């Protein structure tokens, strides 16, 4: 193994990371899981923890980009150079970049995660049988609405397990459209579009408007690739069109004709000769997990190894049953020492049956999800596990804060919170009972609400108390019970069945509000007493339970605050 000159390494062991964007090749959940597993490769053998953060500056920024992507080292199109990463340090140092001209998979071909249906988001199983016929890609057969679907087992006729395939008609990702599906047709610069487009962009990403008029609403998202999408070429993300003509001949499948490198390609219109639109047909792709594990090795301080079986060897090689090579272990332990102490203790049995994670749920890669039993005696009045309902719960500076009767706990990287702090020690102007709090992701300002008063903290300087009237709330609003922050300078403030959208900069609620919580957030209790965003998911708490909702406003989990959030044994 080799380390960077001067043995560059992190001066702390609790490393944070942020995923800045996603590839259209893989569902965001599959991507999140691949990165979490890649970090776990290293945290399994060295005393390191990796925590994903959504606000603030992390140690490791992760991004997908093509060609010139914002640093002095451009990517080179499909194949060749797959990714790069910087050694530990501030700024771009520690960051990992992945070439989005590659076809990102888990190493064995297209990964299609389903949505909706009855398979709980499982991956498509190709080939599958439907009505006696075999299908090797998503199909709209059997449906009149044209939506593409697949079976998640080999035999739909027998098992009846299915889900819908990624499509811009189901959802978009990134952008500012909050995951809403495309609206077709939509207007962009006065022109009407009936499909995703790369117009207006220099990076080739396909996008659409999530309202009927982009020029007016400026709401957009990126289109997920379909399983039949081509990679690279000049039509990235478009499907092959068969038959197509090339140099006068007709092709009904991908071909290597016209190429010296043997790579399979197709046209994305019916005539290559006329339109010259083409892309590579999908192959096995590169395992995002394996490449990420290698890049994270760089981000932790390892250079390339000369041992061909080592993870830190520079060349890519797919391995289905991956194990870290002793050379990699020696390298990381040279920098950070061996992992000390026992492995994390399995969670204690709780009253709530644990759900078996699906192959794509976030791995318990780091210790962030694990439970550490505590042997030390705890003062019941200061034990968060004895709290029936918290006054407020909020993610502040990337850490979950739980408020109750003048005290607050912060959720550590693992296990339940330890001893509480006094609210007055940290925020001297605040009262003992906080109804809700949030931190604006843009300005980093923290807001606290109690009754009809609110306070604004910027670092240690405070404004307030001020009345809710100042924000435009009517006298009938007695308190703010929860907040859902967004990255666009807006925050949703909840009180039972009503919610408002606050413009943080203007410090005023937007016109058109309040709106009905039950209508816009279907499936969560309208009498939630704590509402907050944590790790990008929305939480609605009622009594001892919480409802967790994705940014697509789908309830994905109902759990116990005490066991699942506070991690009480």
């Amino acid at each position, binding site marked *: 193994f080799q380390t960077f000159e001067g043995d560059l390494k992190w001066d702390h062991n609790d490393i944070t990371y942020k995923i800045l964007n996603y590839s259209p090749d893989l569902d965001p959940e599959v991507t999140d899981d691949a990165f979490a597993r890649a970090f776990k490769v290293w945290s399994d053998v060295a005393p390191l923890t990796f925590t994903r953060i959504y606000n603030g500056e992390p140690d490791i920024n992760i991004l997908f980009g093509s060609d010139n992507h914002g640093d002095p*080292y451009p990517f080179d199109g499909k*194949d060749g150079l797959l990714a790069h990463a910087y050694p530990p340090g501030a700024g771009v140092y520690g960051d990992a970049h992945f070439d989005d001209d590659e076809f990102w998979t888990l190493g064995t071909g297209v990964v299609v995660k389903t949505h909706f249906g009855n398979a709980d988001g499982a991956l498509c199983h190709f080939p599958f049988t439907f009505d006696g016929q075999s299908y090797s890609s998503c199909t709209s057969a059997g449906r009149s609405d044209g939506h593409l679907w697949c079976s998640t087992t080999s035999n739909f006729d027998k098992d009846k397990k299915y889900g819908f395939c990624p499509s811009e008609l189901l959802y978009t990702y990134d952008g500012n459209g909050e995951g809403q599906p495309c609206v077709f047709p939509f207007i962009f610069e006065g022109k009407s579009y009936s499909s995703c487009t790369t117009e207006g962009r220099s990076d080739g990403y396909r996008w659409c408007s999530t309202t009927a008029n982009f020029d007016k609403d400026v709401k957009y998202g990126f289109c997920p690739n379909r399983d039949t999408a081509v990679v690279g070429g*000049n039509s990235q993300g478009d499907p092959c069109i068969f038959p197509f003509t090339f140099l006068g001949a007709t092709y009904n499948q991908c071909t290597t004709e*016209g190429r010296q490198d043997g790579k399979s390609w197709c046209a994305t219109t019916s005539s290559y000769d006329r339109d010259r639109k*083409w892309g590579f047909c999908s192959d096995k792709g590169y395992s995002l997990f394996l490449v990420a594990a290698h890049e994270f090795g760089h981000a932790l301080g390892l250079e390339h190894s000369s041992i061909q079986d080592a993870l830190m060897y520079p*060349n890519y090689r797919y391995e289905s049953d991956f194990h870290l090579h002793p050379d990699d272990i020696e390298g990381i332990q040279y920098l950070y020492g061996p992992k000390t102490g026992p492995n994390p203790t399995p969670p204690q049995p709780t009253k709530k049956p644990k759900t078996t994670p699906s192959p794509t749920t976030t791995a318990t890669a780091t210790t962030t999800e694990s439970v550490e039993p505590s042997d030390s005696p705890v003062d019941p009045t200061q034990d968060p596990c004895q709290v029936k309902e918290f006054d407020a719960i909020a993610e502040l500076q990337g850490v979950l804060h739980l408020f109750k009767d003048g005290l607050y706990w912060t959720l550590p990287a693992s296990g339940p919170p330890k001893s509480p702090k006094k609210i007055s020690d940290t925020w001297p102007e605040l009262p003992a009972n906080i109804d809700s709090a949030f931190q604006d992701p843009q300005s980093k300002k923290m807001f606290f609400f109690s009754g009809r008063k609110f306070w604004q903290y910027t670092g240690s300087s405070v404004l307030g108390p001020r009345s809710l009237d100042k924000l435009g709330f009517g006298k009938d609003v007695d308190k703010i019970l929860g907040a859902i922050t967004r990255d666009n300078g807006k925050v949703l403030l909840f009180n039972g069945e009503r919610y408002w959208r606050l413009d943080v900069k203007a410090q005023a609620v937007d016109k058109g509000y309040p709106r009905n919580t039950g209508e816009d957030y279907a499936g969560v209790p309208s009498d939630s007493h704590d509402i907050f965003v944590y790790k990008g998911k929305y939480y609605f708490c009622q009594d001892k339970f919480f409802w967790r909702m994705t940014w697509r406003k789908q309830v994905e989990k109902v759990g116990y605050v005490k066991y699942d959030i506070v991690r009480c044994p």
Partner: protein
Amino acid sequence: TSLKTPMTIVFPGEIRSNLTDLESAEKYLARYGYLPLENGEQRHTSIKKSLLKMQQKLGLQETGELDSETMKAIKTPRCGVPDVGK
């Protein structure tokens, strides 16, 4: 989103690499830190030296020649972080 860049039309036949094996190797050696950027009579000597360095680093047979094993390694997809130097 308002940038307007004309789409480059790429004909599949046109992206054939015209680089010889030697040129491909030079490009690879320079990109990953094995080949110092120098010209003149020293060039071929330094390519041989660089190939040896690369073969040693990648655990290949150290021939100093562009043999098939070396060319295969050059064409294999890889990480963009240089093997030698900063």
